[in-house]
């Protein structure tokens, strides 16, 4: 528990407005990233993020400070995402949204010309889509470890604390997650090449 975390916790427990703003500013984007990568759906991720922060705000008084604030919030996010996925996979099939999918590529149109070429954007977009699709094929247990390590850049020790497992288990899950991702990507690339040559 760093001094910064302790100060933030005191502010949250005292109901100081700036503490709440600081917490959101620091953690709303990482929590959204993790839940989005674990669930693969934007609206589900939005629901889970709200649940996560509701729990954080209401449980902050009971937080016993045995771990850092960061790993505590990540742990809530990972647990909520898994609960959400388990619950809704039983009770809801994939729904088709009537809202138009936001075109993330559109943001590239607003950037300056000094950046990469349109070819680079297309290549980057294709790569991103391939990896995102391959990630969804990885088992949630291993996907969580890969997301926390490679996307959130958390240390092995932090991941062990978040997932409540040993360091050896974290290493094993990262190894198996990356291996599963590599296999899924290889299969997708091979099938794509076959389709291109047919």
């Amino acid at each position, binding site marked *: 528990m760093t001094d910064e975390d302790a100060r933030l916790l005191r502010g949250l427990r005292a*109901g100081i407005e700036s503490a709440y703003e600081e917490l959101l500013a620091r953690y709303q*984007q990482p929590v959204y990233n993790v839940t989005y990568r674990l669930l693969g759906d934007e609206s589900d991720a939005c629901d889970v993020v709200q649940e996560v922060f*509701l729990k954080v705000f209401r449980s902050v008084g*009971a937080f016993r400070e045995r771990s850092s604030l960061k790993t505590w919030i990540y742990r809530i996010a990972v647990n909520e995402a898994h609960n959400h996925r388990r619950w809704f996979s039983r009770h809801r099939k994939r729904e088709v949204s009537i809202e138009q999918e936001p075109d993330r590529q559109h943001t590239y149109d607003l950037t300056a010309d000094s950046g990469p070429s349109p070819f680079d954007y297309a290549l980057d977009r294709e790569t991103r889509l391939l990896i995102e699709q391959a990630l969804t094929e990885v088992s949630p247990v291993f996907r969580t470890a890969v997301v926390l*390590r490679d996307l959130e850049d958390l240390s092995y020790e932090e991941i062990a604390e978040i997932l409540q497992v040993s360091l050896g288990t974290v290493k094993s899950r990262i190894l198996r997650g*990356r291996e599963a991702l*590599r296999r899924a990507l290889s299969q997708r690339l091979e099938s794509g090449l076959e389709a291109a040559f047919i």
Partner: protein
Amino acid sequence: MSFSCHNVKLYSPEYVDGRLLPGDQYLISSHLSDCEACTAYFEQVSALRGTVRRLAASPIPQDLQTKLRVMASRERASVEATRGSRWCAVWDKWRFRLNALMRPLALPATGGLLSSILLFGTFILTIGTTTRIVSYEVPLNAYKAEANLVPVELGSHTVILTMSFDGTGRMADYAMADPTCKYSADLKAQPSSISMPSMPTVFAVAQPISGDIQIKFLPLAFRQ
């Protein structure tokens, strides 16, 4: 000491993430310099890790940010309201836990309650009617020993008994058609002339309806 290809792969996460001790790092590197297959594998994993790390973070939607700010404001207000009151804080904590516990059960419980209301609403009329019928009074004088029972002589002709019942199961009237006009009566004149069977079991489960019942008595001839 040297590593097999299988063992080397087990060290790949730490090698790629730069977490190996110098001694292990040296052993892995020396294996990789001699093994093309492992080198190719490590290059693939390393390249994959680099590509995943470069994945652009999805920007958090604007409306979600607004919702989070509103939520933070509400929660802060509740903290201010309960500040200094330990009991309020404990009550809030348990209420929150109970709410989180009950939330998954809310939908099935509501469905069950509505189904029960619908079911009881459907059968409540039947239950009320049955109760009323059970308390139906069978005329006691119909079974009295001193009842003035008049036997009907069939002779060689047919006698038809017609009984009329109202909606509550009471016999409102009866008539006996006798071709020889030997006997005719109505219920009001001679209420004890008809013997009513007692059927409490039937009345408890059956729904009475109004209508007529006609019983035909046929004479039987025996050859001697």
